[in-house]
């Protein structure tokens, strides 16, 4: 049971990361690779503040730290006109050193046994099972962020952001400042990613500089899995299914880890095969249906 509840908890925490990636990739249509840097930035800031005794401030400043990283990427992209992919890579590389500085030039801050938000929540509700409380806290953060974003993306500025991702020239022609819109949107997206990192630091009890490596792939996988299973139907639906996709991805990895059939080094290929199998089910079904039609067609042709 720990594994399923634990995977749900992780899925919700990484769901915030997936939401940030969703905003950058799907709404803004920008390939933003700075997620690795901003995730670790949020992680480092939250860990440093929690070690100093301020867990809530750590989470809030983790969000702001991520936003700052996103804003820098935005400025590099729009004002300095660096290609979006390269701008993301530059931010990611630069933030590596910043993160080491935040962590006090050590590469690992330990929060084991200290007061984190999760521990405080467990103390607040003594009657409830510890893991369920942690799940509720993660779920609360996730729901609040998704709701706030869904509302925000329906305001005037939110609609500008959505339009900028859809048809940039049209937006520019409507005399909306596209540069500022992009910077704001990237700041919000990376803020969510930083928040995810901040929560993860307090959840897992340590912050390690390598925690962000490969995190863009995790976010993208969650977005695509959510979309494929639940379909695209609008922004609010998109944000919610992204979180669901993150949870499903975590469950798939848990499944891959639970198997004892393969040696330990096969973990990554087993999880890749499970994800591929799950995502290819609709395509396989369509192939089979098409084959059936061909057969029927041939049969009709022979008879008539």
């Amino acid at each position, binding site marked *: 049971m720990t594994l399923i509840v634990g995977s749900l908890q992780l899925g919700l925490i990484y769901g915030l990361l997936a939401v940030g990636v969703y905003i950058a990739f799907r709404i803004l249509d920008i390939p933003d690779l700075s997620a690795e840097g901003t995730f670790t930035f949020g992680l480092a800031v939250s860990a440093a503040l929690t070690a100093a005794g301020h867990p809530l401030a750590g989470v809030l400043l983790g969000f702001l730290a991520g936003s700052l990283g996103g804003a820098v990427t935005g400025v590099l992209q729009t004002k300095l006109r660096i290609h979006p992919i390269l701008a993301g890579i530059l931010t990611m590389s630069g933030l590596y050193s910043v993160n080491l500085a935040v962590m006090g030039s050590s590469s690992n801050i330990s929060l084991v*046994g200290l007061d984190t938000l999760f521990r405080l929540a467990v103390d607040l509700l003594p009657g409830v099972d510890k893991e369920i409380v942690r799940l509720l806290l993660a779920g609360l953060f996730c729901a609040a962020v998704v709701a706030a974003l869904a509302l925000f993306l329906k305001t005037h500025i939110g609609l500008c952001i959505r339009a900028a991702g859809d048809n940039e020239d049209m937006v520019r022609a409507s005399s909306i400042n596209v540069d500022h819109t992009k910077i704001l949107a990237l700041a919000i997206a990376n803020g969510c990613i930083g928040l995810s990192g901040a929560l993860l630091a307090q959840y897992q009890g*340590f912050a390690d500089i390598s925690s962000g490596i490969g995190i863009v792939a*995790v976010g993208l996988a969650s977005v695509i899995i959510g979309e494929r*299973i639940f379909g695209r139907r609008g922004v609010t639906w998109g944000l919610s299914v992204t979180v669901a996709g993150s949870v499903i991805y975590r469950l798939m*990895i848990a499944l891959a880890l639970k198997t004892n059939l393969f040696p330990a080094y096969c973990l990554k290929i087993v999880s890749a095969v499970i994800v591929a199998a799950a995502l290819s*089910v609709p395509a396989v079904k369509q192939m089979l249906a098409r084959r059936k039609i061909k057969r029927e067609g041939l049969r009709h042709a022979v008879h008539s």
Partner: protein
Amino acid sequence: MPIKVVPQMMITSVLVFQGQMFFCCKKALPEKPSDSSDKMIFEKEKPMMKTIRNIAAILTVLCMILTLFAGCQQQSTEKIDIGIIQLIENGAFNDMREGFVQQMKDRGYDESKANFHYKNAQGDSTNLNTICQEMVDNGMDLVVTIATPASQAMVNLESDIPVFFISVSNPVGARIISDMEKPDKNATGTSNAIPVNEIFDLADQLTPGCKTYGFLYNTGEINAVTTVESSKKYLDSIGLSYEEAVVANSSEVQQAAQSLIGKVDAFFIPNDSVIQSAMNLVAEVAREAKIPVYCSSNTTVESGGFATVAISDTQIGAITADMAVEYLGGKPIAEIPSVVVPATDVVINKTTAEAIGADIPEEVASEAILVEDAK
């Protein structure tokens, strides 16, 4: 175990659900007209139905996989379940694990008495949390963690499963335990603080006259950073100077090594898995420039370094196994103190010695373990 019933229940409910869906879906499709010759067979399904069918299909596939794997679990209650968590594939970590397993077998805990469950996070710390939760889920009797992040993740779960950590360079600093003598937090183990003083003294014996050392390490590894800090302190105390070149991943190693040539008389490599993985590049660069490379583990020396004073990684795994056996014999964890394993083996690589033209003095060679490049 009640948990076993869950997958079976899930499968039954999903299969029933799936069957129902197929029935409902027939109604979802509009009726085919009798003259179907020019109508498309693919009539449009209602989008909601399509989504539900997709979800049901994917869930069925997942549950089929789950049955397959759930059925294959063998949890016998008489055998001891020992979990081993490793962060990344790495020669040193693998040696530690094998040393642990071998010593457990030698002390009587072989396949007939113990199941070893080994999981590797493949360098992905997002998987580390899931692996720890899975160990708790499977009800391990004890868990062995190799290196700091794995130990931290496991201890943070605050489960009842005792944790034995292998080679965490600073367990108190990593908050895994508060006191080496009286371990709390249900964890104990071995720490491998690198004896930098002895290594630099050995360097003085083998290649006297080195005034400046070059540190080559990955700032992302806390073990390496701790070792470099203590090296700097020692070198300051004996009046030598140092330079450093840091890397973030193995692609930067060659250039970092080359940047130090001409500025230093010798390299020093701490216990760093990134440099270890690219060690042959460093060895090539150093041998060309005839610069000795002093390392922190015998794996690194065998990969092309020059010399070290090390504890063998298999040895440190074996010492942790002894602690585990004490626990299994009935001693409570709080009474098994964590040990800093002292290093005693001098390891020198003959191939490197020839390549850089260093003479190994007789009294050192007689005590040392001489190795050649690992094939």
